């Protein structure tokens, strides 16, 4: 399952860090952060609930970049 989320992040390097953090989160098969369109495209592993995984992704991103937002 693939879902796209709107994000808010100010610098490109931070976007890269968010992508890295999201990819390390449990239940995420693959995550791509598109800084230019301010979007995060997340592919979930099977058997995981998107909403719960996204909460963890959000926390992980907050850790690497406190200034980011993810709408989910």
């Amino acid at each position, binding site marked *: 399952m693939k879902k796209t989320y709107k994000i808010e992040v100010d*610098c490109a390097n931070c976007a*890269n860090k968010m992508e890295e953090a999201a990819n390390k989160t449990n239940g995420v098969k693959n995550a791509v952060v598109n800084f*230019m369109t301010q979007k995060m495209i997340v592919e979930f592993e099977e058997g995981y609930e998107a909403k719960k995984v996204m909460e963890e992704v959000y926390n992980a991103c907050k850790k690497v970049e406190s200034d980011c937002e993810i709408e989910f």
Partner: protein
Amino acid sequence: MQEIIVKLLLIVVILIALGLLITKKNDMNKHQRKMLIRILIASSILLVLQFISIATFDILDDYLFVSSGRILRFALYFTDYLIIGHDILKKAFKGIMNRQIFDENFLMAIATVGAMAIAIYSNGDYVEAIAVMLFYQIGEWFQSYAVGKSRKNISELMDIRPDYANIEVDGKIEKVDPDEISVGSIIVVQPGEKVPIDGIVVEGDSTLDTSALTGESLPREVKVDDNIISGCINMSGLLKIKTTKEFGESTVSKILDLVENASSKKSKSEQFISKFARVYTPAVCYSALALAIIPPLVRLLIMGVDAQWGIWIYRALTFLVISCPCALVISIPLSFFAGIGGASNEGILIKGSNYLETLSKVKTIVFDKTGTLTKGVFEVDGIHHNKLEDEKILEFAALAESASSHPISKSLQRAYGKEIDRTRVSNIQEISGNGVIAFVDNHKVAVGNDKLMRSLNIAYINCHSIGTIIHIAIDDEYAGHIVISDILKPNTKKAIASLKNAGITNTVMLTGDTKKVADKVASDLGITKVFSELLPEDKVNKVEELLKVEGKDKLAFVGDGINDAPVLSRADIGIAMGAMGSDAAIEAADVVLMDDDPLKISKAIKISKKCLRIVYQNIVFAIAIKLICLILGAFGEVNMYVAIFADVGVMILAVLNAIRCLFVKNL
């Protein structure tokens, strides 16, 4: 130095104050505005503090206790430092807590706190730490503003999304969300409005501006029963359209999806930069640490001279200031995004940054002939060896072929030009791959190729001119033949020449047509290699053979996307043209040309080359400046001011350079 700083601060204060006054509310987001005000306050305070000398502060000592002037001076400067840098300090602290040590916040925090500490120790120059933080923040602000602005511009450029659809309810027009319209509904498009959903015209005629989709400025005319594609702008008349697709499946939604997701497919250069940034920042940090510790220890222990800790720590701090990788990390994706945006404005959809990159490395282009180089529409070139007049021959041929939908039959009917009276035709017998036998006005008419003539035992005359030959026999007697040929698109020849200009060394044509026809077309156009009389599956094999020879250079295949999907996906880059309204083509190809002008191929390649050139310029320029500064910094030739200007300046130049990718109109 003092004077330069005062002047610089003055300029900054004036510019920002003006900027805040002039700009409209929605020019900046909340965060940017707040930041700008902070920069303004901090630089004003710093400016005022420049006019109060240490001696002035020291007067205070006479009234209060000893060194109270020194403490007050520190307090004022420190407050200013906190105003401009508190968020950086906070982020750096959080980073350390979360074990995300090596980021630019950390670098800036260490560098400025270090400079601050040196200044406290010597009651010296606090300005350096604050100025570095200040200019770093200005750089960050500029980056955020420039990127936000260009992102907005590019999105606007690509914004062909219709906001509403009109439906008629009780004679009144009502605006509704296009998502709510179901297939088969009737929608109304007024002049000046965008067509929101694909459909068929049921009432009215008009001209359409398709430039947002195709980059083609020539308007297109539509009338009742014509297909109409969403994203076009209705220019003149009122149209009523019966929708054939849902909004989400309509051309405009598909294209937007494609372009928006394009920059998510990362190119090799982008991956390189992410990896580079990951290694680079820690590497610089450790080098700075080494620079602060090793030389003084060497001096102290081995050379036996004074360690000069202060000097080396200062140099290490300068090192940290230079090390921020922002210029690179921001400018590369921005270049690709701008390039893809600019191209889409020209009717060239590139499905990903990676494809843009591959496209710039293409050396061989393989064309499908029919529909790509030629119009795919046959025209009558001549009628030979006939006893009856030309008109009559055409009439018989057109009537006999009236039931067929083959492109050749269609072109014969078009050449005849008059209404076809089907009652004159009877007993139509279609012989696949050969032709047609039918009774027209009670004459037995056979229309077809030499195979048909042979099977009917009719002596036929071969033609010496090049093209597809259609023999005609009336009442089993040879009546002559019609030569038809596919005509080249008007821009084909120019397109091949301009591809050669763009650095394409190898042009190859694949076709199922006869060798004679293929060779003539190729020599007319100046195409280097031809493979003719191919079956569809042969085309894939040929492309695979060519791919083996290619090696490192890339191969692009250009087709009309209708029946060459396998070849499109097999080539390094598949380019589909004339794809407006054809979902299959949009899906199969990596690059989609919305109209069928072959000149767009060379344009796409030129855009990709320009983009990649800018990307490499930025990579080389930014890394070179940083390395030079790092080396000079290690030898103490660069102070912190130069370091911060190098950092911010490189970033600004790189961003401005990246925005150039957007301007591709005149390539």
